[in-house]
């Protein structure tokens, strides 16, 4: 990786893109969110750099969540999710680490903290980690997750969603986000999705459906691009 490939210019978050916190009806945001405003700091080298060889520490390549071992398929609607990791100038971020995790088709996570009375699927763990290719592409095969209720006093149901964690070449571009499915009636009621003030920013969290003509008739197909903060000060030559 060369200096021209990594972002060295970082603008503040645009208005309406960051979640508005704390979130009414999501009690933990009232006790976890810092009460003092964050101190704006310039990006010194520690903030502008990040781990470029992290695949040495975090093994990558586990892209099929739907088939635990040959022939052992998870229950649910098979789906393929793919897209690109881009910087703010639209340049692909190659070598980024993309972590995906999600609930099973019944809306339960394979996690000791999730003790909800919904079945675990013996053939579904629900996480994978890959590196993006030279065009910034990632892809996973998985199953569509189920919705689940959030155990708070005035409960609400999380719509089906995928969790993404992306580690690029800059600490400033570190991103943890979630992806939703178009047309789900729970989207409009989700307190987490709707904490993003800007409508267009919310819509950018919703994956695009691909028609069967593009993905075949064996699985659902979705594309979802993720844009990390930062760009290179010198524009790409066409």
């Amino acid at each position, binding site marked *: *990786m060369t*200096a021209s*490939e*990594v972002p060295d210019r970082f603008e503040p978050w645009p208005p309406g*893109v960051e979640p508005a*916190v704390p*979130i009414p009806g*999501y009690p933990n*945001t*009232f*006790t*976890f*969110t*810092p*009460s*003092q405003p*964050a*101190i*704006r*700091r*310039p*990006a*010194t*080298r*520690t*903030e502008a*750099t*990040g*781990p470029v*060889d*992290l695949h*040495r*520490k975090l093994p990558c390549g586990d892209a099929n969540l739907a088939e635990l071992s040959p022939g052992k398929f998870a229950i649910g609607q098979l789906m393929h999710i793919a897209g690109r990791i881009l*910087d*703010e*100038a*639209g340049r692909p971020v190659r070598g980024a680490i993309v972590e995906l*995790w999600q*609930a099973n088709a019944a809306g339960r996570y*394979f*996690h000791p*903290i*999730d003790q909800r009375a919904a079945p675990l699927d013996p053939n579904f*763990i*629900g*996480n994978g980690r890959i590196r993006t290719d030279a065009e910034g592409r990632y892809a996973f095969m998985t199953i569509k997750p189920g919705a689940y209720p959030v155990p708070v006093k005035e409960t609400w149901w999380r719509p089906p969603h995928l*969790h993404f964690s992306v580690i690029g*070449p800059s*600490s400033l571009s*570190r*991103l*943890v*986000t*979630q992806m939703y499915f178009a047309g789900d009636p729970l989207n409009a009621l989700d307190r987490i999705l709707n*904490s993003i003030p800007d409508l267009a*920013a919310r819509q*950018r*969290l919703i994956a695009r459906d691909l028609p069967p003509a593009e993905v075949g008739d064996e699985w659902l197909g979705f594309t979802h691009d993720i*844009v990390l903060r930062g760009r290179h000060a010198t*524009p790409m030559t066409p």
Partner: protein
Amino acid sequence: MSNSLLAPTSQHTIGPFFPRTFFQPGDNDLTRVTHGAAPTQRGEAILLRGRVLRAEAVPCLNQILEAWQADSAGRFNHPLDPEAHLADPDFLGWGRAWTDAEGCYEFRTIIPGGYPDAAGQRAPHINLSVMGAGLMRRAQTSMFFPDFPAENAADPILALVPAAQRGKLLAVPDGRAEGLRLFRFDIRLQGDVAVETPFFED
């Protein structure tokens, strides 16, 4: 050529279910590139332990912490470091940990070096990000060492923190453990101004 920029994708909470299966032994050990690798021979290895607490000093379970720092000479193996070719090849500078039911985390790392920066001379420091249920945005802080009072006094980022708050960003020496010097650094996500950890945005 278009000057239009794409808007960055919004942050969300990492939630309570970041997979334990993503963690392997050694993820919180910055002294080794991989779990099986020999530790770096450069710099003083230390242990860093602390707790993550929220309002009313309640411990936070299953918070995810990520550490990022320079090597023992203040260099990064990264294209933006003009001395990247001199960076410690046996040091990635990155680690990840999660908090237990008491809110406790641990990293094994080395004391980083400082470095000259356009903003000023940086004192040795470790950048820490905290992510977890209830935190919609990652909380970013920076930890400094009491070993370097002159460097800390000149650090341009520490200088942005109100003077009365700076002490909260200093690790606290706590004797030795596992043959190494032990430092403590508690992170108070929310509390009154006297106790809340200062956080940064870039």
